[in-house]
């Protein structure tokens, strides 16, 4: 049924292609970086005298229709020099443009580096774009540039615990963010319990975050989409770059395989904290492990002017071990094979075959315990996306998506003669298929919109045993299924985003989206752990559904030198998941009985002021928000604050170019403490003091604030090819003791008295990194 609709749509569009073209011609092609040949995502191609523009898609491709004739065309990209061209268009023309961010080698007419003029004009709202250059400039912990730490400084995005790369968008949960690396789903985006993200910024081209008005081509997570694109590899020449830091070192190699036809990129990173353990004279300690590494690789091959193939992959692993008695490793792997095809100058196609997984393994071998625990979550994903540029003032995207999701929950395999039994927990499988179509329509000079629909079907598949539960979570019935469909969920997800241009520099926008989520992460600690169990929608677990409306005002000042935006939103979330007290989430075939289902709502207002040009760059962001949950069995059925609910959240990021060689950076954050459950009394049991809790998340952690500083020194290169820089940083510069944990205990001297104490994780932490490039 879905396929039939899809093919009907395809043939309709292919047919109209022929019917439509008359005295208009199409200019299509790619926008590339002049130095590396990397395709540029979201670059603008504009005809100023016609007031017609188009932006490049995720593969750097654009297509735009204009009346035949000779026209001025300008091509721009954030931080790059805008180029102007005069182009004669008698018939359809395919042409690529190269733009540069280096001021010296420009032949064409140049104005100063451009900003993001389309934030005002584009109907898309709730979207933020960050380039790799920006990520590298923001000071962060341990001197490691980090995408996830940088997006936490944007409005509407809250941090998890201190130093954590977990993030929460507009009051949503940490598992409600769709994190894509070259289209592959990344399940666990953090290393070392969250202090680092899995994204090595050397390998990243750009990052797009959608918080609201999420386009129809995305689905599966209800709060946000973080779409990360890896670099393709330099098409023109070989390059090596890297860095040596206190915690980790990195190296990247890229270059052409066949010049202007094929290129590759390989980037790796490893921490070496464990090397210090080797210095210990305790055998147990010096045989211990504590490290992580990442490997990103990508290559592409241009078959001809119309077809290109990309192959990209990521592999990362954390390894933790104590002596030979205990080891614990976890990591993600992704692989993406893509085929870009320009079917004709108006129809762009991309076909992707994607694999991704996340696994963890525990090995225990001490005393008479000898066993292993293994868990895996994986998916295979086939995507077909089309973009059709054939209609005037419309750009139409449509496609389909088939994703097979498999969860192998932690199972225990014990050796012979050990004091534990092997336990196997049923594998769960779900098949998610979706078709979507959306149209970006310029209705008039001032009014434009993106409207779309996504139809998602989720099949819970056997084989397996499925249970029914009573209100107390006790199993009251079970049913065996073979390889058949156990349950089917069909959902329609409308998406809409509109903008109205008040004058050339300001606009108002409104959006609505519904999104459905079928994969759920069960976290019962304040920091998410690699061992957190995942579940898919099933008989008992209904899909999470979010409806979000938002309204915004956008304005650019001083010839796009400054940009200002404010957005107000309301999000309604259904079928949210929490647990019963003392829930047994490990190796439990009746896990679903431990879950509670409720609803959530969040609302807030966000302000962002950015300065894009000049010696001083950066932004100020402020969020005023509320996020609540309601479960019949929690807090007496009353609404309570979500843990990540923060009333105020402020970030200030400033980068200042002191001279050609010295650049200084500073980041200041302030936020209301997380909502938390503290005791409201005490009693005594079994001779010890116990704490009496009355309401869920009724208290607040103390306010959090912190200042980070950095200085980058780039000496004038001695040789032409080789350049290097030193990055010095201080995390938490004024040594604020922010509370990481607050707990309660009996006083050591007089056990009748109880006291509260806090633990701070990090004081001021200096860092130094040496970066090189040749």
């Amino acid at each position: 049924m879905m396929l039939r609709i899809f093919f009907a749509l395809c043939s309709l569009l292919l047919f109209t292609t022929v019917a439509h073209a008359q005295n208009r011609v199409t200019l299509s092609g790619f926008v590339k970086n002049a130095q590396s040949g990397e395709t540029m995502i979201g670059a603008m191609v504009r005809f100023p005298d016609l007031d017609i523009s188009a932006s490049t898609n995720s593969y750097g491709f654009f297509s735009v229709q204009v009346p035949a004739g000779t026209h001025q065309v300008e091509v721009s990209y954030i931080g790059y020099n805008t180029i102007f061209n005069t182009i004669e268009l008698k018939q359809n023309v395919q042409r690529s443009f190269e733009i540069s961010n280096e001021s010296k080698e420009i032949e064409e007419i140049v104005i100063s580096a451009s900003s993001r003029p389309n934030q005002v004009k584009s109907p898309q709202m709730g979207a933020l774009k960050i380039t790799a250059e920006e990520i590298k400039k923001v000071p962060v912990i341990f001197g490691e540039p980090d995408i996830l730490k940088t997006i936490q400084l944007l409005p509407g995005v809250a941090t998890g615990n201190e130093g954590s790369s977990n993030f929460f968008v507009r009051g949503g949960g940490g598992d409600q963010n769709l994190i894509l690396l070259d289209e592959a789903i990344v399940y666990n985006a953090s290393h070392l319990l969250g202090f680092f993200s899995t994204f090595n910024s050397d390998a990243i081209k750009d990052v797009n975050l959608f918080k609201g008005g999420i386009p129809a081509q995305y689905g599966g997570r209800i709060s946000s989409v973080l779409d990360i694109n890896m670099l393709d590899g330099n098409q023109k020449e070989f390059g090596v770059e890297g860095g040596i830091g206190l915690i980790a070192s990195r190296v990247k190699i890229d270059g052409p395989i066949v010049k202007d036809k094929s290129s590759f990129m390989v980037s790796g990173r490893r921490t070496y904290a464990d090397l210090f353990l080797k210095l210990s004279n305790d055998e147990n300690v010096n045989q211990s492990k504590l490290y992580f590494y990442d490997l990103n690789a990508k290559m592409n091959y241009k078959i001809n002017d119309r077809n290109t193939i990309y192959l990209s992959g990521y592999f990362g692993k954390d390894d933790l071990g104590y002596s030979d008695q205990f080891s614990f490793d976890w990591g993600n792997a992704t692989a993406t094979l893509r085929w870009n095809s320009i079917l004709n100058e108006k129809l762009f196609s991309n076909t992707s075959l994607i694999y991704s997984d996340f696994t963890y393994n525990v090995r225990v071998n001490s005393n008479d315990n000898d066993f292993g625990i293994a868990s895996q979550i994986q998916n295979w994903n086939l995507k077909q996306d089309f973009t059709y540029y054939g209609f005037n003032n419309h750009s139409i995207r449509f496609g389909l998506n088939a994703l097979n999701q498999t969860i192998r929950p932690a199972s225990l395999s014990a050796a012979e003669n050990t004091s534990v039994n092997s336990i196997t927990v049923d594998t769960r499988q779900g098949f998610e298929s979706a078709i979507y179509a959306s149209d970006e329509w310029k209705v008039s000079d001032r009014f434009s919109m993106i409207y779309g629909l996504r139809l998602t079907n989720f099949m819970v598949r056997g084989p397996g045993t499925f249970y029914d539960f009573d209100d107390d979570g006790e199993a009251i019935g079970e049913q065996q299924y073979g390889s058949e469909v156990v349950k089917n969920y069909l959902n329609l997800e409308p998406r809409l985003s509109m903008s109205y241009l008040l004058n050339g520099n300001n606009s108002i926008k409104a959006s609505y989206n519904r999104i459905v989520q079928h994969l759920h992460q069960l976290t019962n600690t304040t920091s998410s752990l690699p061992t957190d169990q995942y579940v898919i929608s099933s008989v008992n677990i209904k899909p999470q559904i979010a409806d979000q409306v938002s309204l915004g005002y956008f304005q650019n000042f001083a010839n796009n030198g400054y940009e200002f935006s404010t957005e107000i939103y309301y999000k309604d979330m259904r079928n949210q998941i929490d647990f019963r007290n003392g829930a047994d989430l490990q190796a439990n075939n009746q896990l679903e009985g431990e879950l509670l289902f409720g609803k959530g709502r969040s609302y807030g207002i966000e302000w962002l002021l950015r300065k894009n040009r000049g010696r001083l760059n950066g932004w100020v962001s402020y969020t005023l928000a509320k996020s609540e949950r309601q479960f019949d069995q929690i807090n007496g059925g009353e609404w309570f604050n979500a843990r990540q609910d923060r009333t105020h959240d402020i970030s200030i990021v400033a980068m200042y170019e002191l001279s050609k060689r010295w650049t200084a950076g500073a980041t200041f954050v302030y936020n209301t403490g997380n909502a938390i459950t503290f005791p409201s009394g005490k009693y005594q049991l079994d001779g010890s003091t116990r704490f009496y809790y009355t309401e869920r998340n009724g208290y607040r952690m103390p306010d959090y604030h912190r200042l980070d500083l950095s200085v980058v020194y780039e000496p004038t290169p001695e040789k032409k090819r080789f350049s290097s820089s030193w990055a010095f940083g201080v995390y938490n510069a004024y040594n604020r003791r922010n509370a990481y944990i607050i707990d309660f205990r009996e006083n050591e001297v007089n056990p009748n008295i109880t006291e509260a104490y806090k633990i701070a994780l990090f004081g001021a932490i200096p860092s130094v990194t040496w970066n090189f490039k040749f």
Partner: protein
Amino acid sequence: MKRFFIPAIVLLLCQLLTSCEEIIDINLNDADQRVVIEANITNFPNTQVIYISRTVPFNDARPREVVTDAEVQITGPRNNTFQFVYSDQHQGYINRGFTARENATYSLRVIVDGEVYESTETMPMPVPVDSVGMLRENIFNDTYYFATLRFQDPAGVANYYKYNVSVDDKPFKFFSVFNDKFNDGLYVTHQIGSVDDDIEMTSKVVIRRQSISAAVYRYWNEFQSTNPGSAAPANPTSNISNGALGYFSVSSETVYEFDFSTYQEFSIQDTSE
């Protein structure tokens, strides 16, 4: 399962963290008082004490508010009732003639200020221990001592165990509960003691081992799985009605005494090499 690797992570972090610890003042609300019932009945032939109290504010100088005027009664398997009366000496309610038996069902009924709190429990069969020993482990250059109890876990039934420990004649404290989810029917070793306990080579360790019911296990397991990293700490689920805090347990108990100094010559297992 988390038990196996969280300690390793926590140990690593603790080295970083302990220096950053600081006593703070927090303004906590004073909630309405709740009744707390601790009725830990065993087959052990000594005086059984049931403690009844109320919660007190966090900053109160008293650890609890003792209730002296409750009506406390246990009904046995043949509908025989035992009244428990308040004793100043015990700060709780006692009945000297009462002993619980294996496999028998008992009902607790407590009346405080006209409110009735009830619970019913059956004493599980004891699981005999067939050898005891000691264990020495080296963890990050420190030596720790543990008492070990070995026994055959009965196959095909869910068994739950609770341990309370007294070190060097200090009062008994809750140590841990275990279930047999991962080792049903196997020859099991329970290792008693933790890195927080100051068990030394010269310590005298007394262990009370109870075979408990699923409901009592649940109560204590919820208690022991609450830590500062928990998403939302809550009061453990009580098996007593009407919103009372605390629990009613009827268990078979065995007491084991370890004099570590007499053990060291012959039976300490050393895992440090």
